């Protein structure tokens, strides 16, 4: 292990021991163009043969999936929000376009200016394929591993369902599947990208809200997109998970959001727990010494 490998910016594939790996691949999910069609959720299920997640009415707007889980590797969040003006629609320049989503106005009513007093936030969530992945760090069997593309994948023939990764993930992504007993999550379509194909979700996304590519290139593209949006008056646009110096050393899948991360169910400042692992072992060592000393003291002065 390199000296950096618990924390800080690194190239995860090189750090994992790959010699001359291919470029790190990832997702840039631009929620400002998401229309909530859930094509990504469906495409992922179909390609990866992911079982259903129950058929529940959650009462969370159009979201009946609820969140990422062992059986949902893409999850489209829906938030209906009071909002003054719709800079995004204005930014589109051409006025209202039918994107297939429910309108807040009467059909055919074409009023100039702001379209209503509320907005939709829609966001397709996914595993972040962290540079410092809590799930991978804590996995005791080696089932979770780093691929040559810098992504994080579970080997299903190794996983024994200990469940440690579930608590290790700062984003609440990976999960143990009921009835199956093993841990499952997004593989960033390891079987597709190895063959030069685009992951199923990105392929199916009709608005290019989900973009797949080399992470460096995606980061540049995302920076330009935020700038454009800011110029167009969408001041609330921001990137999430793109910085290499964040708590997980940069996310392999990052986002453009239109509100605070927690509104979408994302942690505002996640940190991989293993960052503090050396300090934790030190404290445990001290406690162990104190325990041994107590036992010695307890028996001191007594000879058989």
């Amino acid at each position, binding site marked *: *292990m390199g000296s950096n490998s*618990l924390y800080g910016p690194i190239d995860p594939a090189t750090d994992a021991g790959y010699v001359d790996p291919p470029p790190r691949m990832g997702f840039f999910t631009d929620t400002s163009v998401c229309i909530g069609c859930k094509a990504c959720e469906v495409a992922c299920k179909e390609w990866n043969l992911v079982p259903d997640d129950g058929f529940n009415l*959650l009462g*969370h707007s159009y979201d009946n999936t609820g*969140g990422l889980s062992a059986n949902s590797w893409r999850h489209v969040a829906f*938030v209906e929000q009071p909002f003054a003006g719709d800079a995004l629609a204005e930014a589109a320049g051409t006025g209202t376009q039918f994107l297939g989503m429910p309108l807040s106005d009467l059909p055919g009513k074409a009023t100039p200016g702001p379209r209503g007093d509320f907005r939709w936030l829609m966001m397709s969530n996914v595993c972040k394929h962290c540079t410092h992945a809590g799930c991978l760090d*804590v*996995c*005791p*069997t*080696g*089932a979770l591993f780093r691929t040559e593309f810098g992504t994080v994948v579970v080997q299903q023939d*190794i*996983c*024994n369902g*200990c*469940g*440690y990764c*579930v*608590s*290790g*993930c*700062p*984003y*609440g992504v*990976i*999960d*143990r*599947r009921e009835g199956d*007993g093993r841990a499952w999550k997004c593989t960033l379509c390891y079987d597709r990208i190895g063959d030069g194909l685009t992951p199923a979700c990105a392929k199916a996304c009709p608005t290019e809200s989900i973009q797949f590519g080399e992470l460096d290139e995606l980061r540049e593209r995302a920076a330009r997109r935020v700038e454009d949006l800011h110029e167009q008056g969408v001041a609330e646009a921001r990137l999430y998970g793109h910085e290499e110096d964040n708590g997980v050393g940069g996310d392999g899948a990052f986002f453009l959001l239109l509100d605070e991360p*927690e509104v979408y*169910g*994302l*942690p*505002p*400042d*996640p940190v991989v*727990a*293993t960052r*503090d*692992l050396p300090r*934790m*072992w030190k*404290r*445990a060592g*001290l*406690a*162990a*010494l*104190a*325990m*041994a000393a*107590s*036992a010695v*003291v*307890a*028996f001191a002065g*007594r*000879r*058989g």
Partner: protein
Amino acid sequence: MSPRGGGDRSMVPEAEFRSYYGRPIVRPPVWTHDIASYLFTGGLAAGSALLAAGGQATGDATLRRVGRTVTLGALGASTYFLIIDLGRPERFHHMLRVAKPTSPMSMGTWILASFGGVAAVAGAAEFAPLLPSRLLRRVLPPAGDAAGYGAAVLAPALATYTAVLFADTAVPSWNAVHPELPFMFAGSALASGAGVGLIAAPGKPARRMAVLGAAMELAAGHRVEHGHGLLSEPYRQGRPGKLLQAARLLTAAGAAGAVLGRRSRAVSALSGLALLAGSALTRFGVFEAGVVSAKDPKYTVVPQRERLAAKTEVTGQP
């Protein structure tokens, strides 16, 4: 999306925060109470192994015999709880494919396996006289003595690694208390070992161990319950709060009884029972407090927001 009120009344004003329909952000542990039981039995195995080694060193055969036997039983229970909590119990041996320093569970597996090896030899030595083989009757006791000390050397690691196991997670209230949790668990393990001694062969060493263990557990527990702001809250409220309160009372009563009741075999035994029960409740309380902190997004969002705000203050930029 809107601030949610917590169920419990508290002295701290309800923190303002936003969330996605109040859903958890980090995933609540999939572990069941088996893991809390394991924490207890693992600690008990460690505490009893120290007791046995003490008995061995001071020529107290009763303490040695009881300590080793309880260690063996607790070890069996630990292994059982660990394996049945797996999603694929038949694959438990996959833990032994790798030794991974970044995984406290991997390190713990190796600690438990090594401890188990020596503790089993020490335990078996106690049954040597019953064995049919002359050779075993001759070889086992000295081997058991060496193994007994080996177990005592590994026992503190067994009792404290579980604190790192919990702390090295995204579970907010487990992660936050990482400086004190190993001391709480070490104290709890000592107290439970002392409890065994007080029941089986009360004497000065068991009493001292009871007091030292209880003091360590209570002092560290106090920091866990009060020293971490919002993230200490789950240790004081609701069911985990009640469990830990009961644990504190039992542990304190056990330690007091061990000293004050030293002339009475019955009081000593009751004190031992109280220490054992206190140790078990401590583990269940800590376990459940973590689960509570993972289920409510408040414990993820508010501390992280505060951290961000502090960063902004320092650097002057968001």
